[in-house]
C-alpha cells in the first residue's frame, strides 16, 4: 500500500492473473490421471476391490480439487459482478450467466466445474452399478465410461482456463500440459469402443489414433508456432515413461501396505502406459513437417491440418497393433486387418485434423478482443 500526498490509498498489489486456481485445477486433473493409472494397475496385478481404495481416493480427490477450484472462482466472479468490480476475462474466459443472472461463471471454470460435479455424481451411479453387478473391474462398463467422460469434460475446461490466459507464458504451458493429461487418458476412454464389433478392424485403435491426432492438432492450432504438437507429444512420452515405472510400483507398494499378495503370473507391461501410442512423437513430427512446409509456401494451415491429421492417424493406426504385438506377444496382427484399421484411422484422422485445428483457434478466442476484455 502506498499513501499518496493527497491522502488517497492506491493499491500497488499485482493484479490477479488467475494462475493459482488454474494450477490447482491442473493439479486436480493430474491427481485424477495418477488415480486412473494406479487403479488399472491395481486391478491387473492385485485384484480385490472395494470402493475405498487409495487409487479411488486419488480419482475422487482429483475431481474434488478441480471442483473446489472452479466453484471458488465462480463465486468470486459472481461476487465481483454484484459489487460492480471489473471482471478480467483472462481468468477462465468469457463470463456466462448461470441460472439467469444468479451466477457469473467464466466459461473454462464452468466446464471444468461441471465435469468435476458430474464425476462425483457418476461416482454414485458407479457405486449403485457395483452393488447390482459386483466389482468386476471391466473398464468399459457404462458408469466407468461416464466417469471417464466426466474427467474429460473437467480436463477440457481446464485447458480452456489456461487458454484464456494465453498471453501469459504459464497460460500457454498450462494449456499444453493439460492437453498432455488429456492425451494420456484418452486411450482408456477409447476402450469404450470395445463395445463396437471388431471383426474387420480394431475400433479401439481407430479411436486412439483419432483422439491422439485431434489433441495434437489442438495443441498446434492453439500455439500456432512450430513445436506445439511435438512438445505435447514429448510431454506425453515423458509421462508415459514415468507411469511405466510408477503404476506397477504404486500398485505393488499398496498391496504390501494392506498385506495382499500379487496375482500369479502378472504381466511386466503396465496397463495404462502400454495403451498410449509409442509412435506419437513420429505422428507429431508428420504434423510439424507439414505445417512447416505449409507456412513456407503460404498454404492454408487449416486445410493442411486435415491432410496432416489423416497421415498422422494412418501412421498411428498401423503402428498401434504392432505395439500391442511387441508388448503382448499373444497378439498376432493380420496384415489385412492392420491395413484396414490404419486406413479407417486415417479417414477419422482427416476429421481429427480438421476439428483439432479449429478447436485450437477457438481456444484463442476465449477472451474477447482487448477493448471488450474488461467487463464491468
Amino acid at each position, binding site marked *: 500500500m502506498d499513501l499518496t500526498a493527497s491522502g488517497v490509498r492506491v493499491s500497488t498489489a499485482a493484479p490477479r492473473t488467475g494462475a493459482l486456481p488454474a494450477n490447482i485445477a491442473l493439479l486436480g486433473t493430474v491427481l485424477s490421471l495418477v488415480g486412473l493409472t494406479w487403479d488399472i494397475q491395481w486391478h491387473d496385478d492385485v*485384484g480385490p476391490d472395494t470402493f475405498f481404495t*487409495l487409487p479411488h*481416493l486419488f480419482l475422487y480427490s482429483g475431481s474434488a480439487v478441480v471442483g473446489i477450484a472452479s466453484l471458488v472462482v465462480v463465486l468470486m466472479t459472481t461476487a465481483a459482478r454484484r459489487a460492480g468490480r471489473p471482471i478480467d476475462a483472462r481468468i477462465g474466459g468469457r463470463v456466462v450467466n448461470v441460472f439467469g443472472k444468479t451466477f457469473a461463471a467464466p466459461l473454462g471454470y464452468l466446464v471444468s466445474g461441471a465435469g468435476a460435479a458430474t464425476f462425483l455424481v457418476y461416482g454414485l*451411479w458407479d457405486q449403485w452399478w457395483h452393488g*447390482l453387478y*459386483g466389482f468386476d473391474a471391466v473398464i468399459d462398463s457404462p458408469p466407468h465410461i461416464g466417469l471417464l467422460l466426466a474427467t474429460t*469434460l473437467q480436463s477440457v475446461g481446464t485447458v480452456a482456463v489456461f487458454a484464456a490466459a494465453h498471453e501469459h507464458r504459464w497460460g500457454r504451458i498450462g494449456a499444453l500440459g493439460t492437453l498432455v493429461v488429456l492425451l494420456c487418458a484418452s486411450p482408456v476412454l477409447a476402450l469404450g469402443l470395445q463395445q463396437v464389433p471388431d471383426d474387420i478392424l480394431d475400433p479401439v485403435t481407430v479411436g486412439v489414433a483419432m483422439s491422439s491426432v485431434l489433441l495434437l492438432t489442438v495443441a498446434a492450432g492453439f500455439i500456432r508456432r512450430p513445436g506445439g504438437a511435438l512438445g505435447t507429444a514429448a510431454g506425453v512420452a515423458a509421462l508415459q515413461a514415468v507411469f511405466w515405472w510408477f503404476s506397477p510400483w504404486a500398485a505393488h507398494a499398496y498391496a504390501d501396505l494392506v498385506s495382499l499378495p500379487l496375482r500369479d503370473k502378472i504381466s511386466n507391461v503396465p496397463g495404462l502406459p502400454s495403451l498410449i501410442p509409442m509412435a506419437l512423437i513420429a505422428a507429431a513430427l508428420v504434423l510439424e513437417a507439414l505445417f512447416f512446409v505449409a507456412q513456407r509456401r503460404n498454404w492454408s494451415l*487449416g486445410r493442411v491440418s486435415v491432410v496432416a491429421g489423416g497421415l498422422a492417424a494412418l501412421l498411428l493406426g498401423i503402428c498401434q497393433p504392432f505395439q500391442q504385438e511387441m508388448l503382448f506377444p499373444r497378439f498376432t496382427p493380420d496384415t489385412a486387418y492392420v491395413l484396414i484399421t490404419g486406413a479407417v484411422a486415417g479417414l477419422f484422422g482427416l476429421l481429427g485434423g480438421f476439428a483439432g485445428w479449429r478447436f485450437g483457434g477457438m481456444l*484463442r*478466442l476465449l477472451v474477447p478482443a482487448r477493448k471488450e476484455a474488461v467487463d464491468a
Partner: protein
Amino acid sequence: MRKTLLAFLAVAGLLFGFAAPANAYEPVNIVHTERVQAGPYGLTVGFSVWPLRAMQSLDFTFIPDGGIAGKSGTLQITSPTGGGRGVQPLVRHPRKLDVWGLDVRSLQAPGDWTFSFVINGPAGTGTGQLRGLQVLQQPGPPMGLSWAISTLPLIALVVLIVLAWRRTRSRLRGGGLPATA
C-alpha cells in the same frame, strides 16, 4: 496467496488423513459347486453366487482333489456363441491362495457357457469340460438406458463445441489466425 495455499494444504491433509482406505476384503464364500473329471483328476468348481446372471460378477474356485500343490493347468472359457478370451493359466485366487480361481469375474452374455480345463500333475495330463453352465439374463435396467445415462457428458461436450463453433466460425474461417492473436 499464502493463506490460500495453507488452507488448500489443510484441506488436502484432512482429506488424506481421515479418509484412510479400507483394507478389509470380503472372504470367498462358495454357495454352489459342480464336479468336473479332467482325466485322472477330479476337480470341484465353486461359485460364490448361484444361479449365474449375465454381467453379474462372482468368485470362481477350481479345486483339484488333493489340492493344487504340484499341479498346473489352463482354463478356456467359451461363450454361448463360441467366442471367448482364449486359454489362460490356472492361477491362485487372490483372496483364497490355497486354490485356483477367478476373482470378481462376470460372464457377459446369457446362455450356456463352457469351461475347458487342462490339468498337469503327477498322474500326467488330463482334460475335462464343464458344459452347459447356464447364465440367466442380466439384472438391472436395459443396457441402452445405462449407456444413455453414461454418455450425457459426451452430449454436453458436443453441444458446447457446436455452440462455440458457431460463434467463432466467421473469425476462424479458412484456418487463418484468429482476430485476437
